[in-house]
């Protein structure tokens, strides 16, 4: 087997003052490489590269395609996740729609059917005519003879009437809370939670719903709403 050129040269008696023909060829090749590297750098500084920009871009194309696919997937995943998250306001309106009229067990205080206006109002309320009932409660409030039950039910009717008025409901529930000595606290909390959520007042809604979620009768529904609000 032929020895490498370096070994052949080592074994030779080389002239002291000149490079041999083989050494000169090798040196020339090394310097050619060095010069090409230097010129390549000078060309690169002028924007001339071994591979044209298009070629380099073409080479990057698979990576760009992967990156684009990942971006599309991420956007799609985000959209699906977002679409799957219930909207807090919608959820609150669903809950309001499902609220059943608090008849009988709701009226925990004294008997309110002491006068004709109140009687007519409660009759309308009992038959589900929430708009007429609301008008009756408003009349009682204006006459300054409304009780806490009247305020709670006024708020309820404002939510359930054919033309819901959440701001009015909020006012009635807050007034009821002022008058409440504890008997309606849980109902008022849940209604306020729903009303605030319906008005998209997130912080206030969360405050009411968190209290309800920790042991209230509507704890599960409250937790759902909290999740949607966060």
């Amino acid at each position: 087997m032929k020895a490498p050129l370096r070994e052949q040269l080592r074994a030779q008696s080389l002239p002291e003052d000149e490079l041999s023909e083989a050494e000169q060829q090798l040196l020339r090749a090394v310097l050619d490489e060095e010069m090409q590297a230097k010129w390549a750098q000078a060309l690169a500084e002028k924007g001339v590269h071994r591979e044209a920009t298009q070629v380099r871009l073409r080479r990057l194309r698979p990576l760009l395609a992967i990156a684009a696919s990942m971006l599309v997937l991420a956007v799609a995943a985000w959209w699906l996740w977002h679409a799957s998250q219930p909207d807090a306001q919608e959820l609150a309106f669903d809950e309001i729609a499902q609220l059943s009229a608090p008849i009988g067990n709701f009226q925990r205080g004294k008997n309110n059917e002491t006068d004709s206006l109140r009687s007519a109002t409660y009759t309308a309320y009992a038959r589900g005519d929430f708009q007429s009932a609301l008008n009756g409660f408003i009349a009682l409030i204006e006459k300054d003879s409304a009780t806490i039950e009247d305020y709670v039910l006024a708020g309820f009717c404002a939510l359930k009437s054919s033309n819901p008025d959440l701001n009015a409901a909020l006012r009635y529930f807050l007034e009821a809370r002022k008058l409440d000595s504890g008997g309606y606290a849980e109902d008022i909390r849940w209604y306020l939670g729903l009303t605030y959520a319906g008005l998209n007042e997130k912080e206030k809604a969360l405050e009411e719903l968190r209290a309800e979620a920790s042991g209230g009768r509507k704890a599960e529904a409250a937790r759902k709403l909290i999740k949607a609000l966060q």
Partner: protein
Amino acid sequence: MSARPTPVNKNFGLSEAEFKRLQDALKQGNQQLFEQIFLSHFERCRSLLVVKYGARQNDAYDVVMWSLVQFRHLLLAGKVAYGNLEAYFMRIAVSKYLRDQNSGKEIPTETLPEELDFPTHYLEDEETLAVLAKAWSKLGDICRKLLQGFYYDKLDLRSITALIGDSSEANTRQRKVRCIKELRKLFFELE
């Protein structure tokens, strides 16, 4: 109507006097002018190979780069005459490209520039070349300039003495012996 090509635009924009100045500069070890002129035409020459011969961008780049190195050697050896430098240069590049593309096949001899007769039969041992490149990089700056002047740029002794700032040509001659010894020492002792 296109203008008839003038000698200047057939010669990389060089007049005959400028071409002579370029050759003189190269012979004195100054290749700044060469680089300035030929690197500015690099992309155009590459494009010609790509467009006319269907070369790939990187192949064309390698070929033009190789041709520039050869062209420089030819200029230094005084084998290039002013007249149609561009055509001559492209002939070198196209021949090289066709030879690379048809390696192993028979190429008509008229396509190869007869001047490219630099010997290359010792260059197949890549390991030896790599060791020499390493040894060369470890050699001192003065010795590198001196040996490059002698064996690569083909400068005369007086130009090399001036290039390395030696006091006399006799000193440069002695220094050359020491530099060769140093290069061989590095070359043979490297692992």
